């Protein structure tokens, strides 16, 4: 019985029925982590803490106590999420020794649901990147083919789930950082509606775009995890008090009457032919089972990436200014005055991509450029959002590829930052509009690399994503 290949919901059953204990399961995960250490998925592990949590769950289960939705299940969280007592490095030299003095709300919810947190996942530094090659703790590898990138910035989370080191992982998604790595590694990645999950305790990159989400091996797992982490948090003014549906129950097994929006802007000639045929097949499967296709138009889609880089860099420049070497983090030893202290500490602590984005961010915010760039980008953001809202008047979900191409080789794009940015071209518009989206595997290319399909729903309609996603997942398995 290879427990590590099971979905979360399956191992949950196994735990419930006593086939395996949480401690045994946790030990299996740590063994797997050691066996696959070449993937470099985790920056730190918390073996002692994990085994203690696992033991506590086993004891509670044995004494008949009521247990949470994730009781005893080993989970990984991205290393930009604070968890008291663990290092939260954001894969940056700057925070290499930063120990969390508090726990993020989303992590606390996992703990309260009985999850066994086993480690902090590697990532692109401060969540800036699409390949997990920007980490101060080394590159992460794609378990499908270790010459390839796992995607980013939640590369460690994706690789960990895909390689069977854990049963689910938390990641963050600002421009595709959950969905793109999920697509590259052949797993499911969910970015919820902006405001669905609290951001308190999650190190901010772009405050108006960041959202915590999950990476799992199945759609149903994703629904289970979202049910645990969603909810209004008084610590986060941007979190919503919108009602939380029962996400698992949203999976009905039928897509009859589902209206699928197809936007030509997603299916242009730049699209890889294998990706296109994979998507076409998936969409056809839906149609064969009672769904209908609808043409929708998103005319400003191609400006979303530019809007994204302007807004996210601006917010990042401001959010990362607190890293000054005074309260925590790197403090340079060779400074001559206060101003110099800031310069030296930050220059020593930050990687190249982070520095680039901070400079870009300060440029678009500086007087003289603020109106032409930041303000204008905010306006275009509204246009994009309105276009999506209009499209959703005609359909229930929009389907498109997660990325135009599957994973690329490590080192292939690291010298061309614009080419790197372009990998996010299909994921970024969703963050701009604040919509929920799910990426799921829908095939493989001729080299065996996974191809990801993205399902996009209107605000607060993650239920539609889970239902449609689960249906296709089953259909693909059964070869329908």
């Amino acid at each position, binding site marked *: 019985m290879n427990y590590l290949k099971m979905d979360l919901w399956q191992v949950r059953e196994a735990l419930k029925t006593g086939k395996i204990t949480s401690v045994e399961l946790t030990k299996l995960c740590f063994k797997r982590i050691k066996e696959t250490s070449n993937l470099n998925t985790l920056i730190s592990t918390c073996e002692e803490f994990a085994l203690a949590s696992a033991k506590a769950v086993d004891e509670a289960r044995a004494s008949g106590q009521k247990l949470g939705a994730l009781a005893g299940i080993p989970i990984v969280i991205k290393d930009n999420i604070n968890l008291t007592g663990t290092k939260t490095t954001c894969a940056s030299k700057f925070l290499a020794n930063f*120990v969390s003095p508090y726990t993020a709300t989303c992590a606390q919810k996992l703990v309260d649901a009985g999850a066994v947190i086993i480690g902090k996942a590697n990532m692109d530094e401060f969540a800036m990147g699409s390949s997990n090659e920007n980490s101060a703790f080394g590159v992460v590898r794609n378990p499908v083919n270790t010459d390839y990138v796992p995607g980013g910035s939640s590369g460690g989370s994706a690789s960990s789930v895909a390689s069977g080191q854990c049963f689910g992982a938390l990641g963050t998604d600002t421009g595709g950082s959950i969905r793109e790595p999920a697509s590259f590694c052949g797993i499911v990645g969910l970015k919820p509606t902006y405001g669905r999950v609290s951001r308190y305790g999650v190190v901010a990159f772009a405050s108006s775009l960041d959202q915590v989400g999950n990476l799992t091996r199945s759609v149903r797992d994703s629904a289970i995890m979202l049910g645990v982490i969603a909810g209004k948090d008084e610590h986060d003014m941007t979190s919503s*008090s919108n009602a939380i549906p029962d996400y698992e129950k949203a999976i009905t097994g039928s897509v009859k009457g589902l209206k699928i929006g197809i936007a030509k802007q997603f299916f242009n000639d730049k699209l890889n032919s294998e990706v296109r045929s994979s998507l076409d097949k998936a969409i056809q499967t839906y149609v064969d089972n009672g769904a209908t296709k609808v043409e929708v138009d998103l005319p400003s889609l191609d400006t979303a990436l530019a809007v994204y880089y302007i807004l996210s860099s601006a917010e990042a420049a401001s959010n990362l200014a607190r890293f000054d*070497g005074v309260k925590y983090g790197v403090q340079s030893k060779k400074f001559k005055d206060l101003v110099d202290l800031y310069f030296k500490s930050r220059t020593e602590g930050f990687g190249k991509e982070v520095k*680039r984005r*901070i400079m870009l961010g300060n440029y678009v915010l500086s007087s003289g450029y603020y109106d032409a760039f930041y303000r204008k980008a905010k306006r275009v953001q509204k246009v994009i959002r309105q276009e999506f809202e209009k499209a959703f008047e005609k359909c229930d979900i929009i389907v498109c590829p997660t990325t135009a191409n599957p994973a690329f080789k490590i080192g292939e794009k690291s010298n061309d*930052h614009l080419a790197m940015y372009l990998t996010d071209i299909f994921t970024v518009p969703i963050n701009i509009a604040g919509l929920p989206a799910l990426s799921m595997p829908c095939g493989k290319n001729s080299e065996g690399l996974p191809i990801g399909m993205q399902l996009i729903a209107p605000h607060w309609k993650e239920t539609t994503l889970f239902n449609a996603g689960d249906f296709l997942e089953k259909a693909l398995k059964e070869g329908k």
Partner: protein
Amino acid sequence: MPKIDINEAKKLAKLSRLEFNEAELANFVKEFDKTLEYMDTIQKVNTSNIDLHEKTINAKTQLRKDEVKNSFAQKDIIANAPQSEDGAFAVPITVEEGE
């Protein structure tokens, strides 16, 4: 089309509190020009009907009640400080009050 020169780049670096050597700065300027050109494409979108200050998220303003909750212990606040003295953060330079 906005362009950036070495002097502007130096100003930006100062604003960002980042140090670059001459070579890095020159490279930055080159890359930046490409990025700026790309970002400038947003100008083509017609936004004349957009009111930025309209409600975007349908959430009623929810403010926090003015009730004291326990603060963190002093030791936890300064636990990650590179330098501290008697419970305060320390910088080994004299700094005047007010910026």
